[in-house]
């Protein structure tokens, strides 16, 4: 196994005299590369997993959902055009605003960044694909299925109507029998899982799939933003998933987490929702700013001024955004001092945001700015976003928020931030990257018309809302009375909304108008310096002819002969000798080559896995438990088949020459493998969800005097002790199996695993018996419910841990898991490290805390 630091980067491209001089050789290489990377033909096209296909579908689907949510917004604006309008009923209006917010956030704003990154990031890093193409495909299909399910519900009148924030007890009492809430909880949980999958993919992509020589100080700024955002997803989405779990348990099984009469507290939901919800805003905003950071230097014709400052801003915003969530709860009656901390952090987050804007302005000043449609949208976005930022500083001030909160002021503010900070940059990027995607330009004339319609319409629609709100109009009202002075402002907003929509329609028209006769754009049409623009017009499926050596932030500007060397295959991996899809894995800080990674090709398995996983969530919505379980078993089987046939493949030879006299291994286990990193990252997110449940436990302890009732604890203590002991032993055996796989021999290895499986199951059993022995009934009070939910979470993880060990056992029996090829046991051992931590925390909290409290 090669060390994690990798091998030296070659001094430069293959010079004259190398085999690459011969055009015949090159043609042969190109044919083999084309064959390896081509998309499947005919209907099998939809089994593709390559980032160019999946990224495109993902982008189009996200845009489709956006248009749908936009139509809902127009209908709502039509209803609010005049006071006491009867166009929409209250019920329908409430479904519409709920869907508008949910779809824009969960089905457009977050996915469009995942989609765009799947499409762009490999190209920016000259990787032939992301490390887990099938995971991307699985995420995409999950997204489409979940999205269609959630959106479709409105045509049957059963769309969620609890607001995109789904506050209980509204959603657990008044709307208890409404299917819509379950559609929201389960449909969107499904999509959240897909988002976490994308985050895993993108983190590993940025850290491990860079071209040789692209040290951490040279990576494209977009990649920095994606890295930060993907890490944020790991900490932001799990609390919501935990919250969804609690809410669904209350709805389906009457566990009283949010029922004040049985010790619950509705505020826990608000905490969990907004711990997700506020970082979410930055998860949406940062990638868009990342796009700006790619566009601005191109049109300034110079490198960004203050690269470190952008990195500071991205990381700083990522951190601070987790200290803001209570500013959505300023009116819930928390003590001043608590509100003060969040008010302070909310003001502080404006600092890195301001830095980013000034970096762009400084870059434009120091360069020689050229004008174009992308720049038009980019400057427009600055104008809109800055205003949204300034009103953000206002609402961050708790006392002012006591007036502005939940009014149209906030509606105005958030649209300035999201449209200025996200939609306009994304539109700018659509114009900028359209030649990248299709080889052809969008129209300058249409773009200008679209911009001015959108800019004027947007301001006409949303600027008045700040006053509508302060003059007394709350959010989420389907009607308002005449005589409050709101009539003219609302009419202006409605007119503006339609003008804005007309502008966006022009963009859509420009994208879809036939371009058959339009010539292809020339290569690198904007004279950019970053790697994605080395793409040919039209692009080839292989993405990059050879994986280059990078010595600069803007290699297309700075590295002499770059494109010629690249096209002549004078860098790494110029060939696909074995007809396999290959890309390079490099080290984190200095991007030294570590491994030649074989990535998998087309398959239907990911599609079916997504369909069956979707079935679990969708059937559960209707409480069709049997169908749900059948679907779940099917999903598990499909995923196992996918893992068995498509991962940890043993190569036909241990290493290969990737060009430039560099020999790299084809197989790597442990920290040298991308799978290990994926497991590490996934489990970080998983641990966050678990800790959110533990947070819930201590939250109830804080606010309720009757939490941890008198006399709780002692009966369960031995069972908890037993559960921990068994887990510890299972963990020890798993660790031993990993460490001593060679010394144990196949039989010893398999025996160790079998024993570990038994212990894991015993641990799970003991864990379940602990609350049973105390006679805890989860529907009676929030204390037993809190104990049970932690036990269930940990118990399910133990079962999964046992299943993973069984998988390793099976692989070993099949002769696929050997001391030389042991990826699986490394990854499972890593899972068990996290599992041990979870069980330890669970047992300590549930068994010991009641005794000391």
């Amino acid at each position: 196994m090669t060390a994690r630091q990798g091998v030296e980067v070659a001094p430069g491209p293959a010079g004259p005299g190398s085999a690459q001089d011969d055009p015949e050789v090159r043609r042969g290489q190109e044919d083999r590369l084309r064959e390896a990377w081509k998309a499947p033909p005919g209907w099998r096209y939809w089994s593709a997993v390559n980032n160019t296909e999946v990224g495109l579908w993902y982008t189009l689907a996200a845009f489709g959902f956006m248009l749908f949510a936009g139509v809902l917004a127009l209908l709502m604006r039509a209803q609010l055009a005049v006071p006491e309008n009867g166009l929409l009923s209250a019920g329908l209006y409430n479904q519409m605003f709920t869907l508008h917010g949910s779809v824009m956030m969960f089905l457009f704003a977050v996915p469009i960044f995942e989609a765009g990154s799947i499409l762009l990031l490999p190209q920016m890093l000259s990787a032939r694909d992301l490390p887990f193409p099938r995971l991307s495909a699985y995420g995409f299909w999950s997204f489409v299925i979940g999205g269609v399910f959630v959106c479709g519900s409105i045509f049957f009148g059963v769309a969620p109507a609890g607001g995109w924030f789904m506050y209980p007890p509204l959603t657990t009492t008044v709307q208890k029998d409404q299917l819509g809430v379950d559609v929201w909880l389960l449909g969107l949980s499904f999509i959240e899982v897909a988002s976490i999958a994308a985050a895993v993919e993108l983190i590993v992509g940025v850290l491990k799939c860079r071209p040789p020589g692209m040290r951490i100080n040279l990576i494209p700024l977009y990649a920095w933003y994606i890295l930060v955002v993907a890490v944020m997803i790991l900490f932001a989405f799990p609390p919501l998933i935990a919250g969804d779990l609690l809410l669904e348990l209350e709805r389906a099984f009457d566990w009283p987490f949010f029922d004040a009469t049985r010790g619950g507290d509705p505020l826990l939901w608000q905490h969990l929702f907004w711990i997700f919800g506020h970082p979410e805003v930055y998860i949406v905003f940062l990638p868009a700013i990342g796009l700006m950071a790619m566009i601005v230097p191109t049109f300034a014709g110079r490198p960004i001024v203050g690269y470190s400052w952008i990195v500071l801003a991205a990381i700083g915003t990522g951190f601070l955004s987790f200290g803001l969530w209570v500013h959505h709860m300023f009116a819930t009656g928390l003590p001043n001092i608590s509100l003060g901390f969040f008010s302070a952090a909310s003001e502080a987050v404006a600092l890195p945001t301001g830095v980013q804007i000034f970096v762009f302005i400084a870059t434009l000043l120091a360069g020689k700015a050229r004008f174009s449609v992308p720049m038009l949208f980019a400057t427009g976005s600055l104008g809109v976003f800055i205003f949204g930022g300034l009103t953000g500083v206002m609402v961050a001030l708790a006392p002012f928020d006591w007036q502005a909160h939940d009014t149209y002021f906030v509606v105005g503010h958030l649209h300035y931030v999201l449209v200025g900070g996200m939609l306009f940059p994304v539109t700018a990027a659509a114009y900028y990257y359209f030649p990248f995607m299709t080889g052809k330009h969008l129209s300058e004339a249409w773009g200008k018309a679209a911009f001015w319609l959108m800019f004027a319409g947007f301001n006409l629609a949303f600027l008045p809302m700040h006053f509508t709100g302060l003059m007394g109009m709350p959010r989420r009202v389907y009607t308002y009375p005449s005589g409050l002075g709101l009539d003219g402002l609302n009419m202006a907003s409605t007119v503006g909304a339609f003008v804005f929509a007309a502008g966006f329609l022009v963009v859509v028209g420009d994208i879809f108008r036939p371009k058959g006769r339009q010539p292809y754009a020339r290569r690198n049409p904007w004279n950019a310096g970053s790697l994605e623009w080395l793409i040919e017009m039209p692009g080839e499926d292989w993405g990059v002819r050879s994986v280059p050596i990078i010595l600069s932030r803007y290699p297309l500007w700075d590295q002499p002969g770059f494109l010629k060397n690249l096209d002549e295959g004078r860098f790494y991996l110029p060939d696909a000798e074995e007809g396999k899809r290959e890309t390079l894995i490099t080290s984190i800080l200095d991007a030294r080559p570590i491994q030649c990674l074989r990535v998998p090709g087309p398959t239907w398995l990911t599609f079916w896995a997504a369909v069956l996983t979707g079935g679990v969530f969708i059937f559960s919505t209707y409480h069709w438990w049997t169908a749900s379980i059948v679907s779940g078993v099917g999903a598990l089987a499909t995923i196992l088949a996918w893992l068995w046939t498509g991962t940890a493949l043993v190569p036909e030879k241990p290493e290969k020459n990737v060009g430039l006299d560099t020999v790299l291994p084809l197989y790597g286990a442990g920290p040298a493998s991308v799978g290990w990193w994926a497991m590490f990252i996934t489990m970080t997110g998983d641990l966050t969800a678990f800790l959110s449940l533990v947070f819930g436990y201590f939250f109830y302890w804080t606010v309720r005097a009757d939490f941890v009732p008198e006399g709780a604890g002692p009966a369960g203590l031995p069972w908890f002790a037993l559960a921990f002991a068994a887990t510890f032993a299972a963990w020890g055996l798993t660790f031993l199996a990993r460490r001593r796989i060679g010394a144990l021999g196949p039989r010893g290895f398999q025996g160790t695993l079998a024993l570990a499986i038994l212990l894991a199951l015993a641990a799970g059993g003991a864990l379940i018996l602990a609350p049973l022995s105390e006679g805890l009934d989860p529907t009676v009070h929030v204390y037993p419910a809190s104990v049970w939910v932690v036990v269930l979470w940990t118990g399910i993880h133990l079962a999964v841990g046992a299943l993973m060990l069984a998988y390793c056992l099976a692989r070993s029996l099949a002769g696929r898991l050997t001391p030389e090829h042991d990826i699986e046991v490394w990854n499972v051992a890593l899972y068990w490290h996290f599992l041990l931590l979870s069980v330890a925390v669970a047992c300590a909290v549930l068994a010991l805390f009641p005794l000391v409290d």
Partner: protein
Amino acid sequence: MGRGSKRRRGGGATVLASALSLVACEGPQSALDPGGHGAAQLAGLFWVMLAAAGVLWVVVVAIAVVAVRLRPGEHRRRTATFLMLGGGVVVPTVLLAALLWHGLGLMRDLRQPADPAAVAVRVDGELWWWRITYLFPDGSTVESANEVRLPVGERVRLDLASQNVIHSFWLPSIGGKMDLIPGRTNELVLEPTKAGDYRGQCAEYCGPAHALMAFSTEVMPKESFARWLDAEAKPAAEGGGAGLDTFLAYGCGACHSIRGTSANGRIGPDLTHVASRATLGAGTLPNAPDNLRLWIGHTQDLKPDVRMPSFGMIPDADMTALVAYLEGLK
């Protein structure tokens, strides 16, 4: 595009100006037309912040436009760096620190305790109306609904609670809002400074009729307030006659109370002095005999999913008597 950028700056200013002229910012529910200490402080703060934001916006956007359109060309690196440090770091840090400190002080000020001698008000959020209970220092109470009366010049404590879903009590002309959360009692202190009629509304989405969960407010001189509260404490006038009979015959008393009669329901609003209130159905309709008739007959059409069924089956003669009786409950 030099013309374009001027137009854009001009356009922004024009929109702003027209918005300002369009709204005189007056109104019974306007935070910018204050009749209370808190609202006045916050409205003042808003105008200052808005002016500052306007200046900052114009300056930053102007620099951007200069950079992109008016004078594109390489400016000195030093200028750019200076701009980045000054505009991106120093100025915002100082401004935000000052604003934050002011905000913290304001929080302390606005949440000062109420006058202990003043009458307090308990507000319960119902589905979808307001139960208002005046709490005297001696422990006695008077119940009303969908109308809050406050004495001018006193800091009054409002105890906010809910037994169903989360609501938010918002009386923008007097002060900021506060949520009503099941399992908690939140305290809001308001200090009206100007007598007059105001309007408030639920600000937290609470279900189908959220938009129609409003209340009226009258801020009165102290003496008038005391007199009114004495009258409010009294039971309804004697001698209901046919109207009261109808009321009881249709079972209205199962949900509504009229003190001094056998009607003692607790589900709907107390109607003892319903005729003295400004609106019907928690701000849905102005209070007038014709509207009351409409409301009783078509409740579900006027306010979706409200707990009261439409009593369209009441014959005309009975309805007339009922409306006459209720409109006599001053």
